[in-house]
């Protein structure tokens, strides 16, 4: 799923135009103020209201965490998410009637316009082509299960690499990692690794995905999913998959801790 955020006074109008023009399944997600969420009076940390017709809304203690949850939920079945309202998530962003500098927005600003009518939607969609999609572990597992050879599979193994805040209790805390990839070549290498691992007996499908950009501590970086006949091949192949990705794929990381910033390959 490709998310796109629209911010500013003209956000609603542009988000509607964009949604009308996109081919494929679109989920529209709007961050609204508390008063729009309805009258649930509760001291619960999260509240969900839904109707038999399928309408629902949810309220939680952490709105950004909720947006992550929503994107994770819709990613497997939707092609695009059109989002309005502030977020700290790093999704490609359009500023409409919004005077902020691009540096003050968490995601990459792909267009800045004074009003919704000033934008060419086709150009905007073209600019999204190279953007990073929102891929979840669940989606990769769904793809593995949809493989024609899945009927011969009795095991799926997955690996998730995440940003570790501390390697030891008294460590300086790592606040984020920034990943830079050699675009094109990195994807080709990951495809080649997956294809080579899929040649093994009893290994039917291997999926690799590595996120790039700035990733805060606690968040996921990389996923490896293996669809195999039996658990032995699944475990061995998922381990070899992440090992080979770390050794061979041209991706570089810069670590930011409480006290310093450094390229990890220089340590």
């Amino acid at each position, binding site marked *: 799923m490709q998310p796109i955020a629209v911010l500013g006074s003209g956000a609603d109008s542009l988000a509607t135009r964009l949604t009308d023009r996109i081919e494929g399944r679109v989920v529209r997600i709007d961050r609204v103020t508390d008063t729009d969420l309805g009258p649930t009076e509760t001291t619960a940390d999260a509240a969900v209201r839904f109707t038999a017709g399928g309408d629902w809304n949810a309220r939680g203690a952490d709105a950004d965490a909720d947006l992550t949850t929503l994107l994770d939920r819709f990613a497997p079945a939707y092609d695009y998410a059109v989002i309005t309202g502030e977020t700290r998530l790093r999704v490609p962003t359009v500023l409409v009637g919004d005077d902020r500098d691009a540096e003050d927005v968490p995601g990459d600003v792909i267009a800045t316009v004074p009003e919704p009518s000033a934008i060419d939607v086709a150009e905007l969609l073209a600019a999204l082509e190279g953007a990073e999609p929102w891929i979840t572990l669940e989606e990769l597992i769904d793809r593995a299960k949809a493989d024609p050879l899945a009927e011969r599979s009795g095991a799926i193994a997955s690996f998730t690499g995440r940003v570790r805040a501390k390697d030891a209790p008294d460590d300086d805390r790592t606040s984020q990692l920034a990943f830079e990839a050699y675009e094109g070549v*990195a994807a080709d290498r990951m495809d080649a690794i997956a294809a080579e691992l899929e040649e093994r007996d009893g290994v039917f499908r291997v999926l690799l995905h590595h996120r790039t950009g700035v990733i805060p501590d606690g968040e996921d970086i990389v996923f490896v999913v293996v669809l195999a006949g039996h658990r032995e091949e699944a475990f061995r192949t998922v381990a070899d998959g992440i090992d080979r990705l*770390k050794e061979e*794929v*041209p*991706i*570089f990381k810069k670590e930011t801790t409480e006290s310093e910033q450094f*390229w990890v390959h*220089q340590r």
Partner: protein
Amino acid sequence: MEWKLFADLAELAGDRTVPVAADPGDTVGDALDALLADRPDLRDRVLEDGDLADHINLLRNGQNVIHQDGLATELEAGDELALFPPVSGG
């Protein structure tokens, strides 16, 4: 011909891409000399005793030149050259 640089190499050079005067028929080594002449701060980072340091990767069209003719590899029109440190993804 244009170089793509990554991580601290791009920081040292001041740019992620650096065009150099090297043409089809010249070698990868010629293109590297041109790069280091233009961005001298890179020299000590990527060379060791005058040769490309072992831990520095030099790719031509996505393939490491150690699997081609090394720095003697001849350039062809439209080649993409890349220089980067040890990878650290994951």
